[in-house]
């Protein structure tokens, strides 16, 4: 597979290892039997840029992340978990989202490990187990 911009490793060391990175999960992207998101949830964006996440800078970030997507769930991994897999995290503020960031590096295999490491912060609509 040709290398995409999001496969190129970049890391911002000013983002601490214990910073939670939040990623929305739509209801149709849940492997219910495994109680986790589908394995490619942390893959690059469809335009080839890195994986979009929000930096959880305060306790209200989950609500902001899900503001326009009430049926979606949200999972979190820490920057340290991402780095332990050889990936990086960089800030990528957007006009409408100052806390936007990207996970960078080759995720062909590591995205499958991230979904097994991540933690549910809110379940998508239709998921009925406890978190």
């Amino acid at each position: 597979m040709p290398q995409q911009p999001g496969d190129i490793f970049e890391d911002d060391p000013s983002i601490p290892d214990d910073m939670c990175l939040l990623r929305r999960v739509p209801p149709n992207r849940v492997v219910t039997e495994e109680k986790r998101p589908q394995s490619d949830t942390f893959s690059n964006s469809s335009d080839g840029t890195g994986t979009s996440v929000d930096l959880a800078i305060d306790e209200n970030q989950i609500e902001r992340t899900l503001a326009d997507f009430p049926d979606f769930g949200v999972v979190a991994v820490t920057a340290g978990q991402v780095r332990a897999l050889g990936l990086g995290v960089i800030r990528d503020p957007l006009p409408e989202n100052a806390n936007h960031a990207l996970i960078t590096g080759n995720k062909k295999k590591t995205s499958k490990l991230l979904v097994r490491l991540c933690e549910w912060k809110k379940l998508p609509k239709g998921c009925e187990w406890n978190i």
Partner: protein
Amino acid sequence: MTFQVTINSSSKLAYSDLYVAAASSAAKSNAGAWPEPEHLVKLDVKFRDYCYELTTKATNVEKFTAIISTFQQLAALRKNWDSYGALPLSHKSWASALRTLFVACDAGAECPYIGLTNTGGVHLEWSRSGRSLEIEIEGDARQFGYLIDGNEVREIEQITRDDILTFVRT
């Protein structure tokens, strides 16, 4: 004897509808008999302007109905369905996934988890006690296979029906 059933991905379909259709077809061709387990049922599966013909044993009809029903739900997803710019289901990946599923499930594999990837491809996944076999079918129909066991991810080049059957039978 072959019974013919036409399935249109733009219409709602439940197993009972399909079985009624199969039974109705049987009634026409065999004086009211229901398809026996070993009878062949021909499924004409349509997606947008494309049509594929699959022939399977009557015992597999329920399994294929579930698969086609899942594809109907995935085909209804619009651009940006994941909120991060994901693309809708591509015809090439749909056709490739359907063929892969047909070959595997006709040989005895159960219906896997089926999801859409953000490039318009299809994600298939069989899980067994902490291990997973995953097939990612890109929007251009290229296939990538992976075996995940704990923290190990092994890529499988040229995944075959036997790879799938070996996994699901262990």
